[in-house]
Structure formats: structure tokens, C-alpha cells
């Protein structure tokens, strides 16, 4: 059986005054119903990879690949109209900051309803029931009240849970979460990721978790790709991150302070070791 997502030699480039510059430089990976982490520093091409999968890179950006297929469907050959029936319904994306992703003039309930009925015609009563069930699934205790609130009336953590509810209510097969908790603080981060993890596991979805935080991807993923300047420098099982071999990965690991920190100085990356950074 073919994997859910096949990516072969994916390239993303943008024109600059020095000519076309590749920001994703020919990366390849397959994804089954598993949790894949993409980790690397800012600017390494993580978001562009996620967006390319959803065909969200606008001109003058250019995406090429030997193969980019979701459940056998050739993404690069889909029209914008065809993509609209894939986005949300079959592949969903959660982004970093709910404030920029939620519509400020619609209530939480209306937005979740819209996410659902765009893809499925349902009677109003059933829509309402599904919304309340979904809000409960993201552990919102008083879903009736919250459904009536506007985005500015909910906290960051709750806003992000609302986003997740919106993204998951159409029942997608693959969820791409791009730094979904970077705007939240630690205790709330763990809650939100536990919710995503729970839903991904129980619904048997695929997950691509994009983050600059190695601890976080190693906790919530099965497999990890480490990206540096548009290339994948290392691929490993999440449990084996501590025995990563590439100097870039080792450098990132060593640069993080630990809870029982005793070093007087943290090692910093010697960027001259890797071309192009």
C-alpha cells in the first residue's frame, strides 16, 4: 500500500535580486498514519514545506517535486478549486497564533460551524451538536458559553483549542500543525499538545508537527526530520534523538539548558561548519 503522503525531491524557491533562491532544496519523505516531527531553526524551511503540501505557496514562489502525492492524488496537478476540497476536509493546518487565524467578527461557534458545513451539508441541529461535542473534545468545559464568545474574549490557550476544534471537525486524515503552541506558555502548551495527540491517536490520523523545539517534537512524534537551510540533515526515531549524529542536531541539543543545569556556559553553534547558514 502506498503511504498517505509521498514527498520526493520537493523544492520551493523565490525570486530575489540575486536570482531565484531555493528555500527548500529537494527534500524527500513518506508519511503513514504516524506522527512526524519537522524541527530546525527559524528560516530552515519548515513552514514552506508544510505550506507546499497544501499548495499554499503563492506566486512568485515556485514549488516543484518529482512526486508530491496525498493518498495517490498528485497535489501539484490539482486546480485551486480541487485543492479547496482537500484543504480542511482531508488535510488541515493549525498555525502559530490563533489571533491571526480566527475571524474577529464571528463567534467561536459560527466559525466552527462554517468549517464543518463548507465540506458537508448537515441539518442545523446536527451542526450544533457536533460543535458542542468537538468543543468538549478539546476540553472546553462549558462549550455552550464558549461557542457564543468572540475571539478577543478567549485566552490564548483557549483560542488555540478553538482553532484545533475548527481544524478537526471535518475529520481530516492528516493534520499539519505549524508551531501550534509557540505563542502559549508551558503549562498550556502541554495541554494543547496532549489534546492534539489524543485526537490524532484515537482518530488514526497522520500528524506533521512543525516546531523549533526539539524536546517538544521528541515527546509528541514517532519520527523526526531535522532541517537546516532547506535540507533534511538527519532523520531518526523520536526516541533516538539523543543519539543523533549530525553535528547540527548535536549542536542544537547541546545549546539547550536543562532543568538540572550545571554548565557555566552553553555551547553555541559554529555556523561555519554548515555551508549556507
Amino acid at each position, binding site marked *: 500500500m502506498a503511504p498517505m503522503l509521498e514527498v520526493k525531491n520537493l523544492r520551493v524557491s523565490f525570486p530575489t535580486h540575486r536570482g531565484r533562491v531555493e528555500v527548500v532544496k529537494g527534500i524527500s519523505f513518506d508519511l503513514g498514519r504516524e506522527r512526524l516531527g519537522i524541527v530546525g*531553526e*527559524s528560516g530552515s524551511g519548515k513552514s514552506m514545506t508544510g505550506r507546499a503540501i497544501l499548495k499554499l505557496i503563492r506566486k512568485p514562489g515556485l514549488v516543484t517535486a518529482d512526486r508530491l502525492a496525498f493518498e495517490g492524488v498528485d497535489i501539484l496537478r490539482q486546480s485551486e478549486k480541487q485543492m479547496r476540497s482537500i484543504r480542511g476536509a482531508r488535510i488541515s493546518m493549525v498555525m502559530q497564533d490563533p489571533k491571526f487565524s480566527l475571524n474577529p467578527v464571528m463567534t467561536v461557534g459560527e466559525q466552527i460551524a462554517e468549517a464543518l458545513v463548507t465540506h458537508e451539508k448537515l441539518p442545523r441541529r446536527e451542526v450544533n451538536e457536533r460543535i458542542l461535542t468537538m468543543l468538549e473534545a478539546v476540553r472546553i468545559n462549558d462549550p455552550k458559553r464558549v461557542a457564543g464568545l468572540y475571539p478577543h474574549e478567549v*485566552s*490564548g*490557550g483557549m483560542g488555540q483549542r478553538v482553532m484545533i476544534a475548527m481544524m478537526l471537525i471535518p475529520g481530516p486524515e492528516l493534520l499539519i500543525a505549524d508551531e501550534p503552541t509557540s505563542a*502559549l*506558555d*508551558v*503549562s*498550556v*502548551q*502541554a495541554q494543547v499538545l496532549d489534546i492534539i495527540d489524543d485526537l490524532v491517536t484515537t482518530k488514526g490520523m497522520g500528524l506533521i508537527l512543525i516546531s*523549533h*523545539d*526539539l*524536546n*517538544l517534537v*521528541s*515527546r509528541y512524534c514517532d519520527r523526526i526530520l531535522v532541517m537546516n537551510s532547506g535540507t533534511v540533515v538527519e532523520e531518526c526515531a*523520536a*526516541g533516538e*534523538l*539523543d543519539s543523533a549524529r549530525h553535528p547540527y542536531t548535536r*549542536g*542544537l*541539543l547541546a*545549546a*539547550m*539548558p*536543562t*532543568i*538540572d*543545569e*550545571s*554548565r*557555566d*556556559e*552553553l*555551547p*553555541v*553553534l559554529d555556523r561555519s561548519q554548515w555551508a549556507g547558514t
Partner: protein
Amino acid sequence: MGGHMSAIRLSNLDISYGDTKVVHGVNLDIAEGESFALVGESGSGKSTILRAIAGLAPDWTGGISVLGQARSHGVDRAVARQCQMVFQDPYGSLHPRKTIDATLSEPLAIHGVGNRGKRVEAMLKAVGLDQRFRFRFPHQLSGGQRQRVAIARALMLEPKVLLLDEPTSALDVSVQAEILNLLKRLRREQGLTFLLVTHNLPVVSFLCDRLAVMRHGRVVEVADVDLLRSGQLVEPYSRELLAATEGRAGVIA
């Protein structure tokens, strides 16, 4: 003096925004030269405490003193000179149309300090920025470089106390490491006192001597950093924070 002067003393401090009180009865005594962390859930009032000390949240009751001087509710030049603040987002906190040179000279001009060119040059060096950045604008710098500028600006008046609000939260781990090393070195070289807000407990282990855990506007626990390192914080909420961090680091450790 006996070497035991308080750098920051907060007594029965309540802070409000309009009708809403967000910080309740906080007592803290931070010694000169100490590095002290405020941690806790978002919205618990950590930034508000820094803002009140810096004079940016004037609606408070109780006592705030900095280096033995009680702070007034208004603009307090003596405090401003001794005590500077660094914010999380170096992009938002630097003026987009001012060069680095102008940004660093400004506090000197306001306080009538001379010899500005030399001081700017020396400060760029101290925070590890090449002189070629001097006449650039913020958008021409990386996130880590901008945070170095923000730290440099805070240090221009040679303050004794730095209030640091999530100074590395917006940065990649490798850049975070550079800034943490820089802060540690500057503290050692200049005998600074730090009051640091962070949600990252390992950062506290690296940079701080003590911490206060806050929840719902109250301090629930004050502890030595050794107790954090050995996982021995006692309050249930502190243990929750520890568990959230350990659960994540445990996989790699």
C-alpha cells in the same frame, strides 16, 4: 550596608488595571547582585510586576523600593537610571526608523550624558555586535542581533538592575544560548541584579539563584534554584509546572 542591601523590595504589593486588581499582596526581597526569576502561568501578573517596578503600571498600593529608595508612583528618574527593562519581542520594542546608533545614544541624551560615540562603540562590543551594525535599522538585523541591541540599550545608562521579560522566548535555541551566555557574562562583569520573567524552567536553572512561582496574581512559592534543579519544589502548582517541563525533557535526557 554589610553587603546585604536589597536591590528590589516589594511589600504587600497590589497592582490594578482600572477596576481590576491583577497582583495581590506580593512580598519579595531581592538582594543586590542576585538573579531572581518569576515563573508561572500566563496572565498570573509576572509582567505587571516588572511594569510596576519600571513605572509603567502606576496603579499600585504597598511598597516598591529599588536599591533602598522607595519608588514614587510617577516618572522616577533616579529609578529609571538604576533600573532598566528588556522585553520579549525585540522587534516591537525597537523603533523601526531609528538606527542602532540613534537607539543607543538616546538614553544618554535624555540623561545628559556626554561622550556618546565612544559609549555606543564600547557597548556594541560588550554585547558582541560588530561595529558595522551601528548605522543599520532594526529590520536589517536578525532576531538575536535585535535582542542584543535591546540589551545594549538597557545597559547604556549603566544601571544596577535589569528587569528582563521573557528575553529569549522569541529566539531559536542556539540564539537563546548566545543571549543567555551574554546575560550571564554581563551580570558577572557589571555586578548586575536580574529580575527575570520566563516560562522556561531550564533557563531559570542556568541563569538564576532563586525563583518565585506565581499563580492568579499571587506568589505561591519562593525557592532556591537548587530545589528546582533537583525537582523538589513543594507547592502543587509548582510541581505541575515541573511535570510539564520534565515530561518533555525526560524523553531526551
